[in-house]
């Protein structure tokens, strides 16, 4: 067991984990933050996307011990009290989900993508969001929602 400190959604947690425990399992099973989803557990779907020190990463392929001292933001930490994050609002307005399983990862990924500032066009947004799969096929709504937050518009 190794003792680590994670700052998750602005709260500091100290926990003991075995060295092979993923950040995803630490968040879900130990901190009971089940907003972050486990889709594939192998880096192939994006459902487990969280922000680590502001950068979007896959929590399923991250070892919790290697994130000791990091600041993690999960979907539970993006709203401002009762006021939804603009992307959360846009996802509702654009019908950007059906079952909702991919949604926390989509939203965290979109926050990371907008912060990276590399996507200029809708095509580039699609390409840079391709690491988040949606099995319900809500993709058009997802990209609409992201485009609205990015620049206020852009329905296909």
């Amino acid at each position, binding site marked *: 067991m190794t003792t680590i400190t994670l700052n998750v959604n602005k709260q500091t947690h100290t926990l003991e984990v075995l060295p092979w425990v993923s950040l995803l399992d630490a968040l879900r099973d130990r901190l009971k933050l089940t907003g972050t989803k486990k889709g594939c557990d*192998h*880096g192939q779907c994006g459902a487990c*996307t969280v922000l680590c020190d502001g950068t979007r990463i*896959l929590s399923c*392929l*991250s*070892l919790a011990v290697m994130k000791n001292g990091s600041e993690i933001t999960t979907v539970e930490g993006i709203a401002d009290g009762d006021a939804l994050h603009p992307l959360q609002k846009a996802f509702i307005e654009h019908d950007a989900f059906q079952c909702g399983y991919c949604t926390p990862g989509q939203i965290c*990924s979109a926050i990371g993508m907008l912060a990276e500032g590399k996507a200029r066009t809708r*095509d580039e947004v699609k390409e840079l969001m391709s690491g*988040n799969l949606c099995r319900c096929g809500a993709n058009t709504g997802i990209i609409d929602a992201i485009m609205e937050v990015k620049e206020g518009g852009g329905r296909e």
Partner: protein
Amino acid sequence: MFIAGGTNLVDLWKYNLLHPKLVVDINHLPEHRRITELEDGGLRLGALVSNADTAYHPLVESRYPLLSKAILAGASAQIRNMATNGGNLLQRTRCYYFYDADVPCNKRVPGSGCPAMDGYNRIHAILGASGECIAVFPSDMCVALAALEAVVNVSGKNGGRRIPFADFHRLPGDSPEIDNILQHGELITSIDLPEKGFAQNYSYLKLRDRHSYAFALVSVATALELEGDTIRDARIALGGVAHKPWRVREAEAVLVGKKADEAAFTAAAEVLLTGAVGLKYNAFKIELAKRAIVRNGMMALHPETQLPGAQPSA
């Protein structure tokens, strides 16, 4: 074992394909986490710099755009944020049989056999394979590094070595369990790019089963130096076709002095694919690779038309 981004190691570990006794996190080596200019006009990419930070680095974007495009054609944005340059060189094959701990695989368990030979071998090698293994090396970044003639800097117990990129990865032969010439305990510290970056005429084309977030069936990195429309120097490397990025000097020599057109690239493609062998399900890759070489050669004449994710554009 070292762990850097963890995107390959943790994945293989969870599939019960790796059983590391000791894992050493090498992320806290700041001297290998930076990109620096070299006195000879080249650029040194630290092994621990992320794939994303490398692709978007202003000096890589302006001087080695081929590398930038190849990196951005691989994996997803999240994975590129995690994956490191050193780890990218050492990622294992994506052969389905290698990935299934319950079936034989000469790469995983030497001497156990290769079910891909007579199995579903759609993604497998058409060049340089052996009777023991037909796996392909899946990296995109390395295809560009091969074309750019990068050098891998390594440090170990017995000091450092500089390994030309063409010598770093190996063909399977009768020891397919060995992907490259790195010795146990050796650390990749950085990758050096020579001064010549082919920033004017280059293109990376990646053909795959879906437009993004999928490994290449065939990919091509093309770099040209032109004088008017005459080719002065050319590099072509293929991904997804062999156990290492595939480069054939004679094919590049065919292009020198020629007008940069479809006829010239077609002639080069024939030389590059000389000796290609198709199996039951992957024979289509031979023609696919030839056409991709021609198409990418034409795209390299107009790099500004390159679409996000290295999709076909011309």
